[in-house]
């Protein structure tokens, strides 16, 4: 089988992993080295596929042969896809060839499990080791780790890779038992705990150098700087609250950088154990928004979905989770933009972190007016009922009105969800700008 055919099979096998991040590393470059590569600062998306997903890393499996039988996975042993395998040298050469042409930021390597977890993990680590040690490659490496692999191998992965990930796949063990019989949530979380220690160790080393006023190494002793994971949405019957609680546990207990949510989508060789119907893609988008609220907006996990009623545990699909929360907590509004704390401002629908910080800046020199919001390209229409400004009090808009919710629902014929899960916040912001542009400001004020 030639290199091109192998690449087709092994890239096809890897595309269900949503992670594409290449940011968050300590800054480094290839000055003074014998090779190429730099990382740190903002990640770069070198291309975009027509599915709206960014192409930042060469995302491949080392092999798509697999012992496990996870029913949502195209590479499970029961699948009838063609199988292929890259040698360590082939994966290394391909990464370098692509990198030199500026197609990619680096490598995201994963693998089906052959023979045993340790055997597979050794191969995966060998690719990273060869890139770093033989070729002095200083670009980005993300290694998918197998939780069953030995701690020594996971540690070695952390030595070479910027990002390590283990996918929890499903939020609870009972779902795993049903759909991924070989996977064990406890074992996964234990492995994540091991990775976290490694990352802490790497950070301590870097901190130690900077405290002793030594320059940061251009090639760190330990590359590992973060771990992430992925959950599949809609393949089991877990509700959004269950998913978000698992995410929250992972963020707080295991110091994860990111939890990715991947809506289960049809695969070429589907399993009879799975639901036929794919979940709406917008559910994935709402989970990303809720995830952002947990991490950057000070929301607690229990606040994001209603506790009771028919929507208990579920995020609304029609409204973004912050707006939905505000509509359920109208007693906390209106918020006076000229007096409220940063924490309160962050809870106002339509105000992003950036806007909140700019408003605080404007407040130092004068009173915030609606005009300021419009200039900051905020969705004035969205926040209007919830705010007080120097020239606006929402009394007449009826925060108590039953019709308030109606105002925010999109007209049915325009229900078009066109979001990129890679950059949910920005897409949502763009959406809000469009809403603002469409609304006539006068008449509402």
């Amino acid at each position, binding site marked *: 089988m030639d290199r091109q055919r192998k690449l087709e099979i092994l890239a096809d096998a890897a595309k269900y992993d949503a992670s594409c991040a290449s940011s968050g590393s300590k800054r480094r470059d290839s000055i003074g080295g014998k090779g190429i590569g730099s990382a740190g600062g903002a990640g770069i*998306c070198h291309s975009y596929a*027509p*599915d709206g997903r960014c192409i930042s890393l060469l995302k491949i499996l080392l092999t798509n042969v697999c012992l496990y039988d996870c029913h949502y996975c195209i590479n499970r042993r029961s699948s009838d896809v063609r199988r292929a395998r890259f040698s360590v040298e082939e994966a290394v050469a391909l990464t370098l060839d692509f990198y030199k042409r500026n197609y990619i930021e680096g490598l995201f390597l994963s693998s089906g499990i052959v023979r045993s977890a340790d055997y597979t993990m050794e191969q995966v680590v060998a690719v990273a080791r060869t890139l770093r040690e033989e070729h002095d490659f200083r670009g980005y490496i993300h290694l998918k780790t197998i939780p069953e692999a030995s701690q020594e191998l996971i540690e070695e992965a952390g030595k070479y890779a910027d990002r390590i990930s283990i996918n929890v796949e499903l939020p609870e063990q009972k779902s795993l038992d049903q759909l991924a019989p070989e996977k064990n949530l406890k074992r996964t979380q234990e492995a994540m705990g091991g990775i976290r220690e490694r990352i802490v160790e790497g950070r301590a080393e870097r901190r130690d150098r900077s405290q002793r006023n030594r320059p940061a190494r251009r090639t760190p002793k330990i590359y590992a700087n973060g771990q992430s994971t992925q959950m599949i949405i809609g393949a089991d019957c877990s509700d959004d609250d269950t998913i978000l609680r698992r995410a929250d546990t992972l963020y707080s207990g295991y110091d994860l950088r990111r939890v990715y949510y991947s809506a289960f989508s049809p695969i070429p060789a589907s399993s009879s154990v799975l639901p036929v119907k794919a979940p709406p893609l917008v559910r994935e988008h709402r989970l990303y928004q809720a995830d952002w609220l947990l991490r950057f907006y000070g929301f607690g996990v229990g606040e994001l979905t209603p506790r009771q009623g028919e929507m208990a545990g579920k995020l609304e699909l029609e409204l973004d989770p912050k707006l939905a929360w505000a509509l359920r907590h109208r007693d906390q509004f209106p918020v006076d933009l000229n007096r409220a704390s940063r924490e309160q401002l962050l809870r106002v629908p339509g105000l992003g972190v950036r806007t909140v910080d700019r408003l605080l800046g404007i407040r130092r020199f004068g009173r915030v007016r609606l005009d300021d919001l419009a200039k900051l390209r905020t969705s004035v229409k969205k926040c209007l009922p919830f705010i007080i400004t120097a020239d606006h009090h929402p009394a007449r808009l009826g925060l108590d009105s039953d019709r308030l919710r109606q105002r925010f629902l999109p007209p049915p014929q325009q229900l078009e969800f066109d979001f990129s899960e890679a950059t949910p916040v920005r897409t949502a912001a763009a959406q809000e700008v469009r809403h603002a542009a469409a609304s006539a400001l006068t008449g509402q004020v």
Partner: protein
Amino acid sequence: MKPVATFSEWRIEARRLLESGAPPESVFWEDGTTGQCELFNETTSPALPEISEAEGGSIFKVPKAFFDLAEVISCHRDARRWGLLYRILWRIARGGERHLLARSSDDDILMARSFSKEIGRDLHKMRAFVRFRKVGVCESSGREQFVAWFEPMHRIIRLNAPFFRKRFTGMDWSILTPDDSVHWDGQKLRFTDGVPKSSAPDADSLEELWKSYYRSIFNPARLKLKAMQAEMPVKYWKNLPEAELIHGLTRDASRREHEMIERRPLKPRSRPKNAYLDQILRESGE
């Protein structure tokens, strides 16, 4: 006043005008950009300006952040940038608005921020969409040689060159653009004039492999063309080898998705004999 083409020229003029007390509305700035954007030459660093310690006793206090912003904005192609920068400088230095930069909803600041954002985006897109093509190996040094053609929106080559130097240190490369070109030989960056596109190589044997990757990583069950175009605008497509695939992939997506859904699901296959599998399942059961 003679036309101003570079940040350092603007700086000299602006300082002179500021000291002579010429209000912004009395000054007409002519853009003298000819294709060169002279940035980061020796005269611009250290960044803290002479303006803050002007001779003759007049001291204008201007935050460093303003000059950082001005340096970036001077790469913009909009001819209004020089006047805008002087107006902001005047307001900060002589208008009693020392904290002007923090006033995010001020019209001048909004315009400046939008210029700087456009430059930032242009820098980022160049880092993303430059495509090197291999042209050979240097006989004397043994280093691989690559050439890229790129058409940035603004005059950002000099601003962006250090990024490429740090990333592709171990290979020789040139990036050619209509305005100017930059070359790296492992020792130092060299800048030359712009060239026509025909000067750049038109193929690389790796591009077929790259296109295979692009085709395979695409998931036809999640077609989102608009999201893709928002990040990779059509204007860049002509210099991206993979862009020629977009039309076909899009056209066939729904058929391919339909075929996936129509296919009869596969039954689970029984567990193969494998000591490792036996072991982990036993452990999970305990």
